[in-house]
Every structure is written in structure tokens, then in C-alpha cells.
């Protein structure tokens, strides 16, 4: 699963900025560095949305399968499974040395970075590439 803001919320954010700030500023000729900066932030957000929307469905399927195996659960909703995992870790029934946990957390997190920040140095150091991992 991926985090908020969702692609829909991202589009809402970017659309709101372009409508309320960039377009009026550009129209009246009052551009400044802050507008340029926010435009760049907006463009990066759109790129995140695009990468997430283009993500291979096998990534989510793999996350679901790993969670089901870790928790011994037939549940198919990834958020519900993830909540269960959080509770198990907080409760101490699953921990760092539970077989499968490290691999699950690493693969899930690498998939997040592939969408959120594929140039982040820790992601690159762990073999991350530009396209989301299958």
C-alpha cells in the first residue's frame, strides 16, 4: 500500500495551486522565486502520482501475499493486513527476528521509495532503480 496523499488528493493539491496561485501570478506578471519553487514542488508531486499509477500490479500483489503469510491470514485488504501487522509488532508477537518480517518491510519500503523518491540515496544504496520493483 502507499501513503497519503493519494493520487486523487495529489491532483487536488496541484490543481488548487495552479488555479489559485500560479495562474493569477503569471497572468499579472508578478512571478517570483517562491512561485517557481512551488511550481517545481507541484511538478514533483505529479511525477509521484504518475509513478504510482503506473506501478506494476505485481507489487501490491506481492505485498498482500507476504502479509498473508506473515500473519497466517486469508484477509485480502492490504490496509487491514498492515494494521494487523502493526498490532502484532506493538504487542510483541511479531518482531525483528520473525522469519519473513525483515524481507517484507524491506520490499514494501523499497517499493514506496521507487514511487516517492527514486533518487533517495538510501534507496539507491540498496539497489533501487528508477522503475518500481515487480
Amino acid at each position, binding site marked *: 500500500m502507499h501513503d497519503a*496523499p493519494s493520487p486523487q488528493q495529489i491532483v487536488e493539491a496541484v490543481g488548487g495551486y495552479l488555479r489559485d496561485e500560479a495562474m493569477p501570478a503569471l497572468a499579472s506578471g508578478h512571478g517570483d522565486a517562491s512561485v517557481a519553487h512551488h511550481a517545481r514542488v507541484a511538478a*514533483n508531486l505529479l511525477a509521484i502520482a504518475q509513478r504510482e499509477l503506473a506501478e506494476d500490479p505485481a507489487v501490491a500483489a506481492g505485498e498482500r501475499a507476504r502479509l498473508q503469510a506473515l500473519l497466517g491470514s486469508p484477509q485480502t485488504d492490504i490496509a487491514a493486513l498492515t494494521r494487523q501487522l502493526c498490532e502484532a509488532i506493538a504487542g510483541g508477537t511479531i518482531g525483528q527476528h520473525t522469519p519473513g518480517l525483515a524481507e517484507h518491510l524491506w520490499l514494501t519500503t523499497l517499493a514506496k521509495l521507487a514511487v516517492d523518491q527514486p533518487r533517495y540515496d538510501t534507496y539507491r544504496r540498496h539497489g533501487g532503480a528508477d522503475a518500481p520493483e515487480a
Partner: protein
Amino acid sequence: MTAPTPALAPALLQVLAGDGSTGETRIEGLTRLSGGASQQTWSFDWVQGDHRTPLILRRSPPQAVARTNIAAGLAAEAALIRLAGQQGVPVPALQAVLSPEHGLGEGFVMQRLAGETLGRRIATEARLAPARQHLARQCGQALARIHAMPLQHPAMPALRQAGPAAELAHYRQWQAGHGTLRPVFVLALQWLAAHRPAEPVTPALVHGDFRNGNLLVDERGLRGVLDWELAHAGDPMEDLGWLCVNSWRYGVHDRPVGGFGILADLFEGYRSAGGQVLPERVHWWQVMGTLKWGLICEDMLKAWLSGAERDVEKAAIGRRASEAEIDLLDLLVARR
């Protein structure tokens, strides 16, 4: 640039003149640098005849919404900057403190130092390579002096107390309140609880946000320690750990100290100025700081989701929480 409040320049002249006259003086180049609704930072020059003084105004306008209870407040920040300067910590000189009769709210005016504050440039720009040679050592010395500032000094403002237990409890609660599902954060909280150091015997002044991004640096090295608003009383190793959080190494992973230096130099500088380094505590606070940065991202996103903030940056920063997750895994969980 935002158009300045019409009354700001004349009010500033009154603040700076003190009991004297404002005749033959003027404000030039008044520019808003940053800040949300509750806190503002302005740059300007104070011109008196032939003399030009570059200055910074930090203020919280009279009608501003109260800040969180984490921040020390601007009056406290001014007092800390003044005290730090007296203790040999490189800081901007304090020029004036705002009084209610000035009508500008709470705040202060300080010297505007020349130098670089952008973390990425400090870590990577060729021009600053000479500074990077000794910057970690200078940071260690500055931190030792900060941590030696006596909390009982009559001019020391009242500060919140927060050692390892209080900070962990606060951030655990904060995370729960965000309602996000992050097994990596839950695992990190478990690790932090299992490895929590004892409360320091003697609490010390902790800067609270000493990182590459709040340092002013020129070719000679460290010129100013900025942004004292998160100062509190607690475990001084917190500051050394925070400085090493990966997010402010700007990609230079093999320079753990701000992307510009190595731990041996930071520690040597700290010891040379009379400080005691406790490396296991530093590591704990680095893990704590890594988690904390992820929670800060979540918090900013939450403000955007609620409609309280409209800035697109607050939405975007929600997608930086995952860098905290991968950095926590890098610190705590071997890939198997």
C-alpha cells in the same frame, strides 16, 4: 516576496532607535524570507546616514495563533541567542527585542550574517570544501559550549524538560494520533523502548534543531548557529544524534555529520571544548531523530489533509515520510 505590512518599516525604526531619534534613518530592502501565519522572518538593512547594518527580524504578529507547546517562544529564543554569544557559541549578535508598545507582536532583531545556510550547498559545493575540512570539529565545539550553558543562569528562560523517556512517550503518542499504518515506525518505537538510555543525571541545555540546514557557514567554517526555537532541557547527546540523521546529509551518506564530516571529528571537537561523548546515547538519539523526522512529515501532511494548511509543499512532504522508513530499516533491520 510578500508585500511588507505598511507599518512595519516605521515601527522597526522605533525599535532600533530605542530612546533615541529616528531622524536620518531609514529601512531598505525589507523582504520577507519565510514563515507561515504565526511566525515571520524578514531581512532588511538599517541605514543611519552613511552606516548600513544588515539585520533580520523574527516576529510573531500580535494576532497570531499560538504556536505548539514545543517551541520555546521568540522571547526565549532571543535570550538564548544572547546567552550563547556570551558563552562563545557562534551566533548572530542580538540587536533589539520587541516590546508590546512597538505594536509588532513578540520577537527580536538580530545581525544578518553573511554566509551559506542551504544544507545541500554546505554539504556539496566545491567553494565550501575548505570549510568542510573542520566544520564537524567546529560543530562539536559549539555543541559542547551550548551544553555547558548553565540552566540556572538568571537570564536563562524557562524551558520544557524532556529527556529520553519523555521524548519517546511524546513521539509514540504523536504517531498514534496520526492514524497512519507504518509497521516500520512501530518496530522503531519498540527498539527505542528496549534500548532507552537512563535519564541524564544532570539535564543540560539542548539546542533541539542543530542540523545542516540551521547552520550558517562560510569558507572559514561555522559562523552561526540558528533557529533556537526548539531548545529545551534534556540529554545533550540528543543534539549530536540529530545532526547525524541521514535526511540532512543531502545524499553524502559517508559523511554522517551533516553530510560534511565524520563522527571522530565531531566527537574530538566536543571533547576539546570540555564535553563528554556517550556514543551509545548518540546512536539512540540518531534513531529517535530519524523516526522524529518521519513524524514531522506526517504532521505537516495532516495539516494539509485537514484544510488548515493549503501550501502544496505540505501535501508533498507526506511522501517524504518513506525516507525515514528506509533510513530506520537501514539502521535497525538487516536485509535477509
